[in-house]
């Protein structure tokens, strides 16, 4: 990939020269070379370097260091919208990155440019874990950059979007031919920019987008699961009490077992959010106690020991559920 820089534009061009893409047009700002009186600008005046020059340098650095990375074009393309976001006002900016460690040169150049603009700006690279966004405060980041090829699922992306502040941007890039099927509906709401094998999706955070995506977020997932879980737990409690009071029906036992299996799956899906990591096992132990009862009661022999175990397992599970939710 080649980069062509002139006084007004930065253009990307494929090696064979058959395709090109304008990465950025120099903003039309009066006295651009002295665009701001921010402290950082003082330093660039000292080294006699304008923002535009520094930006061009960073872009060239990325192209040089990431030349063999299939995402090189993607990194460069993110710089366009980031440039605008970073210069939107004189405040310090915070940006999150979620992607592979191969992007370190890109991150280093981006960090350099951010610091050049405003020394207090921060760039945070997150570890690749689908739930990593869930611990962050909502609406608090100016921009988030995500590598769609790093195994992002729709929930992670929706979680990320909820963390972007109003007017901020979420940038998703990919070097693959097509995004995962479940992403298609979501990406429909983004501005798509494609060049060569690289595609960039840009979301600008606004309330309507947040409303649209919230149902897919981890927070919504937790609430949905919690609601279902509590309904199931109440039914299991009732069935368990029936058995303990001598009203045993094999089909009740099987139904409770089914509900508890679903509860176990729900609890495992929520595992990272649980205060009590033993909850799924408590559900399993209660299911086991129910099965023991089911067997013991159908034999009609020595049932008391199984009923005692059921009472204890139920007490542990429901106490834990109550304390958790």
């Amino acid at each position, binding site marked *: 990939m080649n980069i062509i820089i002139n006084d007004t534009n930065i253009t990307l061009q494929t090696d064979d020269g058959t395709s090109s893409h304008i990465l950025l047009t120099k903003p039309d700002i009066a006295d651009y070379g002295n665009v701001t009186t921010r402290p950082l600008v003082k330093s660039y005046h000292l080294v006699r370097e304008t923002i535009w020059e520094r930006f061009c340098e960073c872009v060239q650095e990325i192209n040089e260091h990431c030349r063999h990375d299939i995402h090189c074009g993607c990194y460069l393309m993110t710089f366009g919208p980031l440039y605008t976001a970073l210069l939107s006002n004189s405040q310090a900016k915070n940006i999150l990155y979620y992607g592979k460690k191969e992007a370190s040169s890109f991150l280093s150049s981006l960090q350099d440019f951010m610091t050049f603009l405003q020394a207090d700006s921060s760039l945070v690279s997150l570890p690749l874990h689908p739930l990593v966004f869930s611990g962050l405060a909502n609406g608090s980041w100016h921009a988030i950059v995500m590598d769609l090829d790093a195994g992002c699922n729709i929930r992670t992306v929706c979680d990320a979007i909820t963390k972007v502040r109003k007017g901020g941007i979420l940038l998703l890039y990919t070097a693959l031919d097509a995004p995962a099927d479940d992403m298609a509906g979501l990406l429909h709401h983004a501005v798509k920019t494609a060049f060569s094998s690289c595609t960039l999706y840009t979301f600008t955070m606004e309330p309507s987008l947040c409303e649209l995506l919230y149902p897919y977020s981890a927070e919504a997932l937790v609430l949905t699961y919690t609601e279902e879980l509590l309904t199931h737990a109440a039914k299991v409690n009732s069935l368990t009490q029936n058995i303990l009071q001598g009203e045993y029906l094999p089909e009740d036992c099987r139904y409770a077992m*089914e509900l508890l299996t679903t509860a176990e*799956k729900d609890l495992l899906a929520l595992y990272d959010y649980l205060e009590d*990591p033993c909850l*799924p096992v408590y559900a399993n132990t209660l299911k086991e106690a129910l*099965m*023991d009862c*089911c*067997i013991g009661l159908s034999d009609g022999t020595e049932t008391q020991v199984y009923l005692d175990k059921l009472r204890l397992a139920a007490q542990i599970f429901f106490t834990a559920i109550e304390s958790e939710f």
Partner: protein
Amino acid sequence: MKKYNICVIPAYPLENVQLLKDRVLVPYACYRHFGESLTIVTQAVEEYPYLTYLEGAQLHSLPCSESLSHMEAAIAYVSDHYKEIDLLCLFGARLEYTQLALQYKALRPEGILYLKLDINSGWANALPLDHEPYAAFLDSCDIISCEARRLQQLLCQKWRKIIEYIPNGIYYPFYPTIENTTYGDKENLILTVGRIGSVQKNSHVLLYAYALAYLHFTTPWDLVMIGSVTPEFQEIYDVFCREFPAIAPHVHLTGSITDKTQLHTYYRRAKIFALTSQMEGGSPNVYAEAAGFGCTILTTDIDCAQDMTDQERLGRIVKDPDDIHAYAQALSALCADQVYLEHNFTAVRDYIRHYFDYDHIARRLGLLIEYTATEKETL
């Protein structure tokens, strides 16, 4: 409940003694409850006299050769016989199973794949969960069980999968003398059974802890160690006999006992069953046998120690497997407490009868299998 054609395929060629251990006994108990047939598929590496215990079970000998390994032949068997396998039982969280499991699920998606883990926490931490074929293997299993509650919690946390607790138990019909065993049959005997001297069994700890405890005995107690003896342990034992000539006559190394009646006689006579293991794959098969005969358990803190002693209600746990003094202290305290041992005789037997009876466990597995099959039908 539907009758299942059950197939057991070990990861490695089966030995005769393993026919009467959990890897075969769990499927066998299932077969007795809801099985149409039970086929044990293995490369035959020796004679299998214990097969006579497993009435109705078939052993299919794999045609292995230098160019066809046990697992390759097993995969070929599954390809040829998948229609006759409704329930496939695998044993051990082994990478070797990857292709076999995926092959079975590809050919019989509605079939049930049950994996009994036979695992300990050290092994669980070393499994290659990021290795895609291995992860696919675990995903392909419909029911996964482990043998200790401590492990169940660990695996649930690491794997985010439903892990059932299926302990290693006892198949009562093979223990005709258990029922009429009384505390009156018991003698002041401390018993251990296993590969004496293996690193895992940590047998020297028991030997020297016994010597230390011996000094505190108010009545004589003997130590019986049953099982094949490693040359290294034989040396330790010879030195021990020279060091403690007064105690040595009370320590008996019987060697391996294959005659079940004779082995059961030892269980019947022993008051205390001692385990000094560093670790165990799952839970030791000998535990449920000993406890079934009413032996009080003294064990090191292996993964299943809490389950074996029902949180130390029915036995004692020594935290550090290498702490000979602590083990000796616990041993002499137990030997001195005849009231506890007598009371425990009934309590531990009841506990085993209720929770470690393979008959009961198989019925529980039956419920799980029935539920899984119904769930698959509705998908």
